[in-house]
């Protein structure tokens, strides 16, 4: 699946590279590229954040990225290149947690594919974040359950609206 680049970057070994993502999804036949960059922000629910640790079950996460990419390819007609990258480890404020880029012939598909992939990664990937606060406290974020009844089988994105926010699950890094 060389039209899709799927990667997990251990922060101790490197950083996510938006330029590489843009480059990867470029093609002489593509007029539109949409990219999302998720960064660690300094404040969440009124608490001063010093950083976020991302824990991840890497083989399953990469498997899930491949399913997400395959679904996007079906949904957007095959003329699509995708880059899905996520960071792992302890990140500071402003560090890049996630980079998703989609290249397509026309812009509408690029926007929609990028959005769909970002939501699927956030709602189905085995990734957990622990927020670290100025006062020394740390809290694991609540999130989307992968149990039946919460998510469909097959690891695909469940039916959250794009703007969905969990009542039970604030999304601290975003």
């Amino acid at each position: 699946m060389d039209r899709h680049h799927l990667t997990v970057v251990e922060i101790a070994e490197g950083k996510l590279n938006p330029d590489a993502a843009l480059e990867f999804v470029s093609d002489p036949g593509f007029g539109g590229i949409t990219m999302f960059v998720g960064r660690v922000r300094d404040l969440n629910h009124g608490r001063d954040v010093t950083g976020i640790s991302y824990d991840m079950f890497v083989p399953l996460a990469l498997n899930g990225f491949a399913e997400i990419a395959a679904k996007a390819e079906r949904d957007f007609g095959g003329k699509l290149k995708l880059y899905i990258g996520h960071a792992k480890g302890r990140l500071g404020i402003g560090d890049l947690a996630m980079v998703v880029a989609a290249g397509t012939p026309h812009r509408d598909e690029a926007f929609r594919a990028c959005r769909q992939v970002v939501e699927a990664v956030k709602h189905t990937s085995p990734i957990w974040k622990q927020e670290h606060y100025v006062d020394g406290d740390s809290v694991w974020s609540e999130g989307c359950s992968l149990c039946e009844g919460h998510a469909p089988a097959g690891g695909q994105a469940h039916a959250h609206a794009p703007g969905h926010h969990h009542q039970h699950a604030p999304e601290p890094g975003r």
Partner: protein
Amino acid sequence: MDVQVKLFGAFRDCQPEPQVVLALAEGALVADLRAALEAHGRAHWPNFNPALLARSAFASDSAVLRDAQPVPAGVGMAILPPVSGG
């Protein structure tokens, strides 16, 4: 059979090691693995949260497994709390 379960997210804080090994009967289902992990948690983890376990899924390296499915033999398993990537 012995089944290794890798711990992720908040379960990381239950013990220093990143996995537990649980003894299950041959042919055990994921539901049995869930019960065994709950018993283990109640017995050994002071900060064990049964409500979190109830919202958590079990998975192999390649797929999330449902409670009615058998635990695959000879495969490492993982316990996945609700996810919050990105």
